[in-house]
């Protein structure tokens, strides 16, 4: 029995009276264009291609330019408004447009797998995203955290009523991120069956970027954002495994944030201004300074300098007599 005819016979038998007779044409072989006739052409099967590789290059260039801008804005322009503009741009691009992927935080695990497992193929763009912010940290500190990281950006923007976390508690919680880093590497270097990309899986904010996610992770992310209204960037300071790496590397950094443009007034306003507890004895601590540029806004000497610049000169460098 021709299999295609089987169905054709069954259907009228069930229904009794049917306008349909039965298949005369063969339905168990594919009709050719000639069988169908009337100049019929078999339609093309739609086949979308993977994201073009040059888009990876665009991501890499955007990352490099924003890292450079973040360093320049904080260390030279010393301007918080410009940094917020960069932060929002990067949140839109790396967060909402690229849906939080690729990011250096998750790349920790890809790089660990690639080092441990010779058969694992890692995309070029992931290598670039992992190492470039670390190299920037060697020279300038955590510039990635400041204006580039979309996870940092979403937390920085909700920080409306910052309070200072007691220093001891801050230090204690800060250890969590190193534990998370060790766990992430451990889970990555295990055999392939036990491997788990925990950083991506428990990424608290990627659900917001994609506008969907597992309920428990969304609740976790919302809780962090809610807490983030008063406690500055809780994920970055206490949980982020890449923040742990950057904190270690930025200890070696060549330059860092210098709060006052010239001489100190010993007013201590900068210590108060920092929501991340990163100003100690009126000095920005390189391992915890997140390049948010808030301290410049509070520094009286910085204000004098910027007003002077706006007036067309640099009042700080002019001798007192001629002022």
């Amino acid at each position, binding site marked *: 029995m021709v*299999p*295609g005819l*089987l*169905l*054709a016979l069954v*259907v*009228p038998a069930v*229904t009794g009276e*049917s*306008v*349909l*007779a*039965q298949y*005369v*044409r063969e*339905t*168990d072989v*594919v009709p050719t264009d000639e069988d*169908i*006739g009337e100049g*019929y052409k*078999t*339609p093309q*099967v*739609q086949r*979308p*291609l*993977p*994201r073009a*590789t040059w888009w*990876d290059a665009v991501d890499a260039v955007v990352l490099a330019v924003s890292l450079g801008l973040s360093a320049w804005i904080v260390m*030279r322009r*010393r301007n918080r408004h410009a940094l917020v503009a960069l932060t929002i741009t990067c949140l839109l691009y790396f967060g909402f447009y690229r849906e939080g*992927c690729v990011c250096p935080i998750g790349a920790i*695990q890809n*790089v660990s797998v*690639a080092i441990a497992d010779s058969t694992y*193929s*890692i*995309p*070029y*763009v992931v*290598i*670039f995203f992992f*190492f470039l912010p670390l*190299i920037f940290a*060697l020279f300038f500190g955590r510039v990635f955290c400041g204006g580039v990281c979309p996870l940092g950006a979403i937390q920085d923007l909700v920080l409306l009523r910052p309070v200072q976390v007691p220093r001891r508690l801050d230090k204690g919680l800060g250890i969590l991120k190193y534990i998370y880093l060790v766990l992430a590497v451990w889970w990555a270097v295990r055999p392939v069956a036990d491997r*788990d990309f925990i950083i*991506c899986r428990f990424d608290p904010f990627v659900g917001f970027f*994609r*506008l*969907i996610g597992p309920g428990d992770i969304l609740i976790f992310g919302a809780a962090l954002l809610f807490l983030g209204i008063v406690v500055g960037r809780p994920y970055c300071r206490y949980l982020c495994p890449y923040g742990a790496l950057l904190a270690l*590397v930025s200890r*070696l*950094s*060549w330059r860092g944030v*210098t709060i006052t*443009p*010239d001489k100190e007034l010993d007013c201590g306003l900068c210590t108060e201004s920092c929501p991340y507890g990163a100003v100690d004895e009126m000095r920005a601590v390189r391992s915890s300074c997140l390049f948010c540029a808030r301290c410049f806004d509070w520094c009286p000497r910085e204000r004098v300098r910027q007003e002077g610049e706006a007036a067309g000169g*640099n009042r700080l460098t002019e001798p007192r007599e001629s002022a």
Partner: protein
Amino acid sequence: MTADPIEGDDTMKRGPTRRDVLGHAARGAGLVAFGGAAFYLTSKADADGVWVIDPEKCINIRLGATGIEACEECATNCVLPMSAVRAVNDFAKCGRCCICPGYYEVTSDTGPDGLPTRKLCPRDAIERVPIGEVDPEDPLNNFYDYFIDESLCNGCGKCVLACKEPAGLSSLRLEVRYDLCTDCNRCSIAMVCPEDALVRIPADPA
């Protein structure tokens, strides 16, 4: 190096201290370490990888419609609101039947026109287009094209499972749509796929 107008740099006058030298050495070592690791990884990197569905493994693709339920893990487990998996009709294999088992629920009651009254697709994502003029006395022996509206299809796989011999010719299959897939490290469909049919392969734009 130009003098920094912001940071009063008195090390320029005194010459480099031991601390400066150690700092430079540490940074140099860091650069070599990062550069070396990046170079080593680049030597084994590729442009990118993509998730695909192995048709030999996917039960919706390989099994016949013998009364079993379609596996709908692809539709419900993607991290995206609308799964990146779609049903695809390979026109080169399609029999262009009047009563397509992927389009109609063939066990449903027959209507006055002799066709099944219910469609199989829960989202009505398949469009049935007659090819040329249809003889109303003998529609069964006409040809029909079946197009899948990819904005509606969520890759549940019901039609894919149904289009199998003896009723169909296995022209329907499931595919990951690369333009939609976010390419997760840990594909959440792969985690639950009962047949491990979602596999990662190097991207081949050709």
